[in-house]
């Protein structure tokens, strides 16, 4: 019994993924989905345009849209290779995302991952 229990513990310890950003958003659906590197910096944008950021190790904190640039510049200064994950709601007006993308470009970020869910045949057929 204890052996099985320890096997399970090891499984959970290996697979556990500390989620740095717990913002609830409806992600866009895409067919191409690549694995995001571990410890990427997260920027989440809710449908109402509220932004939260995390450097990848700490829990995300809400920031003002103008402060995204200084956050991104700080992350890039520490690790120029660090990937950014944009976790934006599928219904958020593009101008909010545009502001974030612009900050990342100015901060000389190298790669942005647009977090998404798997597109399925059903969701594609229903237009969403």
């Amino acid at each position: 019994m204890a052996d099985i229990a320890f096997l399970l513990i090891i499984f959970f310890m290996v697979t556990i993924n500390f989620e740095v950003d717990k913002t609830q958003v409806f992600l866009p659906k895409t067919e191409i989905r690549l694995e995001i590197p571990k410890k990427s910096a997260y920027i989440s944008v809710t449908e109402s345009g509220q932004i939260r950021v995390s450097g990848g190790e700490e829990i995300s904190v809400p920031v003002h849209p103008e402060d995204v640039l200084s956050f991104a510049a700080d992350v890039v200064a520490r690790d120029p290779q660090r990937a950014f994950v944009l976790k934006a709601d599928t219904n958020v007006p593009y101008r909010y995302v545009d502001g974030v993308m612009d900050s990342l470009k100015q901060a000389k970020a190298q790669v942005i991952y647009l977090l998404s869910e798997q597109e399925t045949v059903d969701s594609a057929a229903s237009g969403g």
Partner: protein
Amino acid sequence: MKFKKGQVDDEIPTASMADIAFLLIIYFMVTTTFAATRGLDFSLPQEEDSPLVDKEESVLIEVQPGGVLVVDNKPLQLDQILDYLKPKLERNPMKPVIIRSTEMTEYGHMVSVFDELRQAPEKIGIEIKNVSIPTQREIDMFWY
């Protein structure tokens, strides 16, 4: 002399081991979240002043609210874009494709277009190497 009283048990007591193990299992089960850890990657240009492509040479995809697409001033459906791009890409594989969304366009529609372009190798057999998503500031600065 007899030392029976002082004899110690030479085995580690393991009776509570399973209890501890199960407590740990429950802890990990409760804290585990199956987070979404996949997405579309988008590499940003790294040159100091990335050359903005000539408007005449590029294909401009405008994404309007509700997912209405206007490609080079012609309305197209999402699944028609790649067929429209194919002859142009066959002539010039480096043909720049610009995705431009209006302020009120829903983010999801822009992502669908980007996803569609990324599927070009599977759907039309050509990779679209030069996709750019300019921001409003860049458009204001460099557009003409």
